[in-house]
């Protein structure tokens, strides 16, 4: 097996007294597409957000490209904490793209400017080259003709596709999708999933927190089910979604299928 692109070892996260992640070990090989399922409050979004350090893990470690991130610091009680310096996190985030549930487009910029922003400000690309690249990314998500529109004039599905183009323009090695279709009207879900599927077909490495079980089944190479801040069950889509072994996975899937046709 190829060297993992990303690895977490005993990843934990607490918010005050509440322990949301209780030690997650996950290894992501290049080209893998991992769907992360779980009930709300299970910690699945928090896990994803720890991978690009939108949340700083409380304990455990993250390796990216074989290098462990952060530095050790001895605690007074003799234990060891990992601390993360802002410049390192900034570099990590350039390699790990994220697409948010609420899109989070920059409302004061056009679609094109949104996609150009990271290239211009972070990578220092000159305007003409950044524009060309951004247009190519907008074309890839089918929005070349909306380049000059402000986000307020775009539908939810279009906004999310711009957000995907914005992340792609940075050439991330890994893409994180945090419930990318949960804020969309049902009839707009398809266009966004279509874009994500086309990225999957290109062989991009991605982690996807989603409630779209059918999509996970068809697009993911691996499915993990998180419950109470731990990986409860993991395997191929067929194993986890069709033949779940553990009771909580079965109950979760049953609840999701209750009202399907």
């Amino acid at each position, binding site marked *: 097996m190829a060297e993992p692109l990303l690895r977490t070892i005993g990843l934990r996260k607490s918010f005050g007294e509440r322990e949301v992640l209780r030690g997650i070990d996950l290894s992501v090989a290049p080209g893998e597409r991992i769907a992360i399922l779980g009930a709300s409050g299970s910690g699945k979004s928090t896990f994803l957000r720890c991978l*690009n350090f*939108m949340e700083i893990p409380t304990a455990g470690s993250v390796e990216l490209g074989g290098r462990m991130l952060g530095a050790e610091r001895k605690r007074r009680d003799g234990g060891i904490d990992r601390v993360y310096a*802002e*410049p390192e996190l*900034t*570099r990590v*985030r*350039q390699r790990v*793209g*994220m697409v*948010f549930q*609420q899109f*989070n*487009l*920059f*409302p*004061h*910029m056009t679609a094109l400017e949104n996609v150009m*922003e*990271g290239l211009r*400000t*972070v990578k220092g690309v000159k305007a003409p080259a950044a524009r060309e690249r951004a247009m190519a990314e907008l074309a890839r998500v089918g929005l070349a003709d909306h380049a000059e529109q*402000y*986000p*307020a*004039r775009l539908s939810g599905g279009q906004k999310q596709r711009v*957000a995907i183009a*914005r*992340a792609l323009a*940075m050439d991330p090695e890994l893409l994180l999708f945090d419930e990318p279709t949960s804020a969309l009207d049902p009839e707009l879900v398809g266009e966004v999933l279509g874009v994500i599927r086309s990225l999957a077909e290109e062989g991009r490495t991605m982690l996807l927190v989603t409630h779209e079980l059918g999509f996970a089944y068809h697009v993911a190479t691996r499915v993990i089910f998180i419950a109470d801040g731990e990986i409860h069950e993991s395997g191929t889509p067929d194993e986890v979604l069709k033949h779940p072994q553990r009771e909580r996975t079965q109950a979760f899937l049953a609840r999701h299928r209750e009202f399907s046709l």
Partner: protein
Amino acid sequence: MYRWDFLPVLANADLLLQGLVNTLAVTGTALAFGIPLGLALALARLSGRRWLAWPAGFVIEFFRTTPPLVQLFWFFFALPVLIRVEMTPFMAAALTFSIQSAAFFAEVFRGGIVSIERGQWEAARALGMTPPQSMRRIILPQAVKRMIPAFMERAIELMKTTTLVATVSYADLLFQANEIAQKTFRPLEVFTVAAGIYFTVILLFSLMARQLERRLAVSGESTVH
């Protein structure tokens, strides 16, 4: 029945005009220094670093809570005694109102900045922007747009507060009006005209600010309704 006679005022129009120029000079100077200084104070207060946040907070609260007249007297009379500087009425006025308006603008900036949704910070950071880049490129441009009404309110308040400079013999519009009133024995007419000038100038600025808001509203979210 009082008989209004504006002719004496008209005869002294040049003095009033000179006063208006002086009023605008103090207001303009205070804005030119107060806005950048206010932004710096707001950023210091929000920085999360105590050695920056606390002094900034002290300056802001001190100048917001003490009467501007006292501040003006302090800069005009006390400062020259303490550090041996020559203080002209204009310098004292410019200094007082620059710092005083900076304190108020700092709070306007702070309010605007903290009103921007967390998701905007996250999206900027997720692209790999540093915190200063996120602030400059993503947060501030949106915050400034939301601040325009509050900002305009402060600017108007500032222009009216500058009438205090007459107390240190700075010949602003109100000072000149007072002079003319004593000279012509026509205080009603003079002060009515002076009020009319304040009204006109401030209304003009107000309309310009609304125009600006409209122009900035192209992206669809704005404070104009």
